[in-house]
């Protein structure tokens, strides 16, 4: 009887780890940083830096419009982006309005995310709904509506998400147009869907600054727009959100989530190496015989 029958040899041990153990490992290693709020240092790349600088340079008396076009399917990437951006706006003391054009469920998700951002900045009394920010709800973005929205916000939207007429909402008083001559200084599209092209088309001519935060899959196509200056900055998925949190020195969900990503990636690499050690072990044993 070969010795391997008595002792579970290296090859057996390392080469055939039960998949359930592997799954459990992945589960724990991704969850732990989220629960423990561990974060790792990040290297902030240029596109988030650009977005940060663009927001830093905005005039204080104008409004920022956030197009929140994500739903539960991409919330791990887009929700932290929204929270980080809103936190930055609060720190810069900039009022903002939320509009959703992709999913009917987005306004509610955006509402809870903004409320969390306000809580994280411990500013519930400084940022009451209506006087500093407003949620304009979901609108179907067909071309006529987009055209009207880009020329007059209050003309295209009549009531906010709670059905309050816009005239009764202080933050929108006098707000009409986008661009340097108008009252809106920037549009930031936070999206899990192909919404940005329409903004280029309809808001591009108004010369308003456009920022984009999108899922990782969509980002590569957007680099040309960053180069051409059509985009003032870009956040790429969860990584972009984490980089932004780093820029703000305000760790939220994304930094621990990126730590989870890092650990999980290393975990996979470790598993691959273990598997190969098993192969080597089998090979050397084969040679000995």
């Amino acid at each position: 009887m070969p010795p391997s029958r008595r002792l579970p040899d290296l090859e057996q041990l390392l080469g055939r780890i039960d998949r359930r153990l592997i799954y459990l490992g992945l589960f724990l290693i991704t969850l732990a940083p989220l629960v423990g709020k561990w974060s790792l240092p990040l290297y902030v790349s240029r596109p988030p830096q650009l977005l940060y600088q663009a927001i830093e340079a905005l005039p204080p008396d104008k409004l920022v419009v956030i197009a929140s076009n994500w739903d539960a399917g991409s919330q791990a990437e887009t929700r932290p982006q929204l929270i980080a951006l809103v936190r930055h706006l609060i720190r810069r003391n900039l009022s903002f309005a939320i509009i959703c054009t992709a999913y009917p469920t987005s306004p509610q998700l955006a509402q809870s995310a903004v409320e969390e951002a306000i809580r994280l900045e411990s500013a519930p009394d400084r940022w009451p709904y209506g006087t500093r920010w407003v949620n304009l709800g979901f609108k179907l973005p067909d071309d006529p509506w987009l055209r009207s929205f880009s020329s007059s916000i209050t003309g295209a939207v009549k009531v906010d998400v709670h059905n309050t007429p816009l005239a009764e909402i202080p933050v929108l008083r006098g707000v009409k147009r986008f661009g340097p001559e108008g009252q809106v200084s920037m549009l930031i599209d936070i999206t899990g869907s192909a919404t940005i092209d329409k903004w280029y088309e309809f808001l591009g001519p108004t010369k308003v600054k456009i920022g984009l935060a999108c899922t990782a899959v969509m980002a590569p196509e957007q680099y040309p727009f960053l180069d051409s200056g059509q985009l003032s900055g870009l956040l790429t998925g969860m990584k972009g959100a984490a980089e932004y949190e780093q820029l703000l020195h305000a760790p939220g969900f994304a930094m621990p989530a990126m730590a989870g990503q890092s650990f999980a990636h290393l975990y996979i690499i470790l598993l691959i190496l273990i598997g190969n050690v098993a192969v080597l072990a089998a090979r050397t044993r084969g040679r000995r015989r």
Partner: protein
Amino acid sequence: MSSPFTFEGAVLWLGALATLAMYSVLYRENPVYRIAEHVFLGLATGYGLYVIWRDVLFPIWYKPLFREHHWPWILALVAGGMYYTIYSRRFAWMSRLVMTTMMGLVAGLAFRKFYGQFVPQIGASFKPLVVLVKGPAGLDWPGTLFASLSNVLFLVCLISVLTYFFFTVEQRSPLVRRTAHTGRWLMMIAFGAMFGATVMARLSLFIGRLDFLFREWIPLIR
């Protein structure tokens, strides 16, 4: 943790239970997963029917026919009905007639698809093997070398992978054989890259679920 007896709470709890039931398949295929799978299938089929009616049959068939009275649309019903003869031996030829007509349409569309998708890539492949990159002080040598080598690599990849896909040429000549072999290796590099680049997106999905389970449902993550 919110109460399951409000509407919002009910949505949350249903979602959480559905999530856990689906994940249970990671341990092994089990009765709970089986129920979840069939519920999912039922809901998806119902939803599919709803979407087909809402997005296709109502706006482009029912409305023109019964509201705007474009009577020829009734013939679409006949054509659609002909599919249903697959269950009858005698009338099955009708289903074949409509199927082969559909196949003909599909085939006809392929020409434009090839034209739109692949032909432009031929023209886009005309990259010079030498790219002279100008720096502030004359020629930027490292830049030139890098850009040129990238384009050479491009050509090598294109030729060798295309050679791998030659089916009716016997690979007798060692040159052809080696080129095809290189093509296979280069493909493996590309596939490895695609695999590695996808991991992050998939993990993001899982982190999204963790966010749902442990922030919205059980508030572990604050």
